[in-house]
């Protein structure tokens, strides 16, 4: 079975631009979570979605938004990019909001 897939794998954007990252969960998983991993740090929780509704939000500014579609895939949007948004963005899926997470390989975002 396919694992969690994320696209694109790498992305370079300029300050002030907007970016959309995509995630497809493992088949049958209804929950998707997003994490930001800055170089040299552990991942930080951004959002969790379950059955297309936002169930949890981390301490990130409103420039960060997400949504989950009827097929349980998800998009993470970041507006008005800052240099500090450069990071590996990880998507994880799980059966429900309390099950262990399965992570994708991430999207490496570089903001110049």
């Amino acid at each position, binding site marked *: 079975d396919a694992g*969690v897939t994320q696209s694109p794998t790498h992305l370079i954007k300029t300050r002030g631009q907007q970016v959309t990252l995509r995630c497809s969960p493992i088949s049958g998983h209804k*929950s998707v*979570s997003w*994490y930001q991993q800055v170089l*040299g*740090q*552990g*991942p*930080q*929780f951004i959002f*969790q979605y*379950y059955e297309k509704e936002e*169930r*949890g939000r*981390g301490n990130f500014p409103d420039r960060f938004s997400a949504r989950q579609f009827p097929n349980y895939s998800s998009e993470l949007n970041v507006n008005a990019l800052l240099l500090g948004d450069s990071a590996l963005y*990880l998507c*994880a899926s*799980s059966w*429900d*909001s*309390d*099950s*262990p*997470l*399965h*992570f*994708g*390989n*991430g999207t490496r975002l570089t903001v110049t």
Partner: protein
Amino acid sequence: AQSVTQLDSQVPVFEEAPVELRCNYSSSVSVYLFWYVQYPNQGLQLLLKYLSGSTLVESINGFEAEFNKSQTSFHLRKPSVHISDTAEYFCAVTPVGGGADGLTFGKGTHLIIQP
């Protein structure tokens, strides 16, 4: 809120030697505990988890971790490491029943296996 402290940013060890990666957490509520491993240019893979029951949990590749509630620790151990164990290891917690709060990760420990 929860916090996780991984006391060592890097742990060098010789192949076939034992290793312990330390993890301490702080939380006002009961938590589930996890260890994840991250190989270069990859996402995180779940290594093992403590949800309830026996405080000693084991993975299929020889790692084990013991939950110590009084010490608020969840140290990861392996009796004999291999070159293939070289990776970044992350300890994480989440409140019991609070999966929507997400995982709180430590900063990670880079395990370096020397031949």
